């Protein structure tokens, strides 16, 4: 009556690699794999296209100026002589100023949030700070023009001149716009990133490290500064690099407060120019193909700068998350 041994006899799928193309096409899994693969490949395609377009459209300028482009100080559309030096200088100076302000402030705040504040307070404040990171750049520019520039002119500038006026950084007339103002606006913009990432990195430091330090008689501060922070050192560095990369690429807020003058000056009160700002200002009116090509070459330079920094930042952050730092007590 019954069969002796019920064997389930599906047509067993042939071993991989031996299926016909048609049957692979109709298999849902393979199709899904293919479709998603295509989209992932699209990202690679877009990025390569981006680099290609930057490269190709800057050919005129690269061919004409070569490496000299990087340290030529003139930017003269009339005679067709273009150089990147004032813009690289401006980009770096504003970024450095912003870091000098934002890193101590941000790191201190992150330490407070990670080590001292009760968890709920820390979480709520971190939430608020993440919101600060979402504010668009042009709004910082708006605040820059109407709040910080007048403040710089009437209060901050004169104060710095009376206290630190002997330094070459603070000599010269104070217009309100300039490197320092741009640096301050940038600092406000990057502080949230530093706090956010540093706080998370500090929170990953194992409890035992702190307890060990305290057990040896360290004060709270000593345990934080000499044990916890060094442990998270690479991650914190990563957050700084990330913030730096953001500061380098920032366009609108800077162009509204920097004074738009392609000059290299020692004084922080002087007006300057950054790569992003000059592209924003002059792109639509670059008469002549060499002019446009020079601007695109500047874009390429900016791209490379942020590319390298972002790469370093990722490596550092990942390194902390994986293995933790060294140099603990």
């Amino acid at each position, binding site marked *: 009556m019954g069969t002796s041994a019920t064997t389930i006899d599906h047509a067993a799928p042939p071993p991989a690699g031996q299926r016909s193309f048609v049957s692979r096409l109709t298999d849902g899994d393979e199709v899904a794999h293919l479709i998603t693969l295509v989209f*992932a490949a699209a990202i690679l395609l877009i990025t390569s296209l981006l680099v290609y377009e930057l490269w190709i459209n800057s050919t005129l300028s690269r061919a004409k100026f070569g490496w000299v482009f990087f340290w030529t100080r003139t930017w003269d559309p009339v005679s067709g002589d273009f150089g990147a030096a004032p813009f690289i200088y401006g980009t770096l100076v504003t970024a450095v100023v912003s870091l000098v302000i934002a890193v101590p402030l941000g790191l201190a705040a992150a330490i407070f949030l990670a080590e001292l504040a009760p968890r709920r307070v820390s979480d709520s404040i971190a939430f608020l700070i993440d919101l600060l990171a*979402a504010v668009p750049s042009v709004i910082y520019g708006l605040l820059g023009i109407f709040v910080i520039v007048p403040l710089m002119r009437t209060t901050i500038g004169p104060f710095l001149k009376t206290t630190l006026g002997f330094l070459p950084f603070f000599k010269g007339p104070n217009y309100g716009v300039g490197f320092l103002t741009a640096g301050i606006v940038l600092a406000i913009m990057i502080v949230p990133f530093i706090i956010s990432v540093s706080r998370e990195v500090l929170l990953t430091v194992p409890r035992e490290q702190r307890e060990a330090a305290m057990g040896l008689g360290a004060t709270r501060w000593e345990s934080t500064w000499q044990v916890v922070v060094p442990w998270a050192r690479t991650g914190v560095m990563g957050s700084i690099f990330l913030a730096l990369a953001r500061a380098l690429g920032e366009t609108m807020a800077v162009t509204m407060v920097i004074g738009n003058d392609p000059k290299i000056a020692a004084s922080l009160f002087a007006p300057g120019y950054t790569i992003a700002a000059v592209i924003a200002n002059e792109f639509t009116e670059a008469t002549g193909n060499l002019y446009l090509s020079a601007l695109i070459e500047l874009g390429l330079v900016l791209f490379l700068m942020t590319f390298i920094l*972002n790469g370093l930042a990722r490596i550092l952050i990942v390194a902390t998350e994986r293995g933790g730092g060294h140099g603990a007590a």
Partner: protein
Amino acid sequence: MSDIRLVWRKGLNIVMLTLTGVACFAVVAVLFMILGYLIWNGGKSLNWDFFTQLPKPVGEVGGGMANAIVGSLKLLGLAAVIGLPIGLMAGVYLAEFGGSVFSFVTRYTTDLLNGVPSIVMGIFAYTLLVLPVKHFSALAGGMALGVMVVPITVRATEEFLRAVPKSMREGAMALGASKWKTIATVILPAASGGIVTGMLLSLARVAGETAPLLFTAFSNRFWSPGLNQPIASLPVMIYTYAIAPYDDWHRQAWAAGLVLLAMVLVANLGCRLVLNRRGAYRSV
């Protein structure tokens, strides 16, 4: 001797810890001042005209930014249509199908794309979509923003897909579902909360971008029909009005700033609250 050293160390402890508190307070205070100043200045500048009228000729008082508000929404719509599918699918690939080398390269490239300054994105969109067809267009602006949307969406999708517990996958497999069916009917829905918020966050991020629009979408004094005409947008209007000398334009710039900030913050707040409350996923 050791007493003095101890006093010094204890003193330093209190000073430094207080300083960190001060720093934190300072940062939060700046945030509140920024928001407060913007709400104050923007709030008193908002009026019904702002939302319903087109800009008036130069130097005349009044008018509004109705076209810029709709323009921003339109550009966001374009960015979503262009960037979200790519981000979603690529995220699915990385989480579910990836081979090791190709995945690594894709992830690295996505990170790279994320770090590209927005003005460079503008140059890219210009060379690709403005030069060849010889006009500024909403489409070019939408494309520049769309490319910026991709990296955040990819990362959010991948993260939340990976966070779905193995048990759900294994359960589906045990019921005989093929891989793609599992993804489509079980895993994606489970991770949908996180993914959707990731998408909204990416859109909120590009809503405020100005630089890539300066020479792609350009700007428009009128309504912009279709996809091939220049289009006004809130960030570009804020920029144009802020650097001009007319007081009435400044007033409108504050109002626009408030509207833009409200859009961005509401999206961010909403997303983060949802994420915190529901956790990373929800069961089907």
